[in-house]
């Protein structure tokens, strides 16, 4: 099993930024979280959040979007360098998700993930569990969200090329 150094414990990867437009906030909320502070700027003014803000699930799902985009860039780089790629599998879940601050319409949010560790999965030979801690920060650098998650990952075998 070849574990790429990108998966060494402590490795932090910046995943880039995402601007939450009012339109996208409202569109997500209409489908999944139609509370007034996610739906309507006027009505949100006298809510507990004081303005139109994204559903916490919108902020969380956007982490996945940027996480995958970052993986795709890494995969391309590995391919260009002739390195074998790990394969990602499903996730058993996450814990300790905290929404520290609302994400308001127009905010740009910057995401990152940090590798906590990997361990082989006894029940699925060839696969490991990858543990991550992730963060989202606003343009002032203040934490808006964090969580700990896990995903299945299959690192390439050393003998794959034989």
């Amino acid at each position, binding site marked *: 099993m070849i574990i790429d150094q990108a998966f060494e414990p402590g490795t932090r990867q910046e995943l880039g930024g995402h601007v939450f437009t009012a339109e996208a906030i409202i569109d997500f909320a209409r*489908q999944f979280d139609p*509370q007034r502070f996610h739906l309507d700027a006027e009505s949100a003014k006298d809510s*507990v959040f004081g303005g139109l803000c994204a559903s916490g699930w919108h902020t969380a*799902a956007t982490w996945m979007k940027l996480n995958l985009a970052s993986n795709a860039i890494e995969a391309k780089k590995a391919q260009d360098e002739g390195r074998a790629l790990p394969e990602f*599998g*499903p996730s*058993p*879940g996450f*814990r*300790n998700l905290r929404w520290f601050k609302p994400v308001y319409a127009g905010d740009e949010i910057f995401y990152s993930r940090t590798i906590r560790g990997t361990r082989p999965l006894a029940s699925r030979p060839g696969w490991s569990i990858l543990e991550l801690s992730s963060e989202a920060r606003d343009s002032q650098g203040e934490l808006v969200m964090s969580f700990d998650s896990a995903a299945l990952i299959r690192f390439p075998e050393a003998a794959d090329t034989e």
Partner: protein
Amino acid sequence: MPKDEFLHFEDMSPGTVFPLGPKSVSADEIISFAMEFDPQPMHLDEEAGRNSILGGLAASGWHSCAMMMRMMTDSYLLRTAAEGAPGVDFVKWRKPVLAGDVLQGETRVLDARESKSRPGIGIVSLRHELRNQNGETVLESENPVMVRLRPAETAQS
């Protein structure tokens, strides 16, 4: 309680249960969410899903969370004097949510206590569970929500 009255902290004592769903999950919804947030083959394509560990076109776990949120708003949150949630203790994606599945379950109040730092606010700990049409648990989660206490002047109503 009259139907038009909001649920307050006092209405959410431990053991209170709110039904979630039923919600049927279509292939189109799964693909549409995945294209935006989680474009992995098993969330985008039936055949890729069948050939994956998930065994079929499967909803992104984040989509399952979002669908659970909608079931919560439809069941009780939109008629609760809620002030948002500080987070989620855990979500366990126990089984894949596949195209054609019908999800339902419940939210159960585990604990309710008044906030020491914010007068008039209670912290209600909730446990959520969703099952598919075969009765298999697909998602389990627990999280706290902030709920206002019933205003004193309406306490008798």
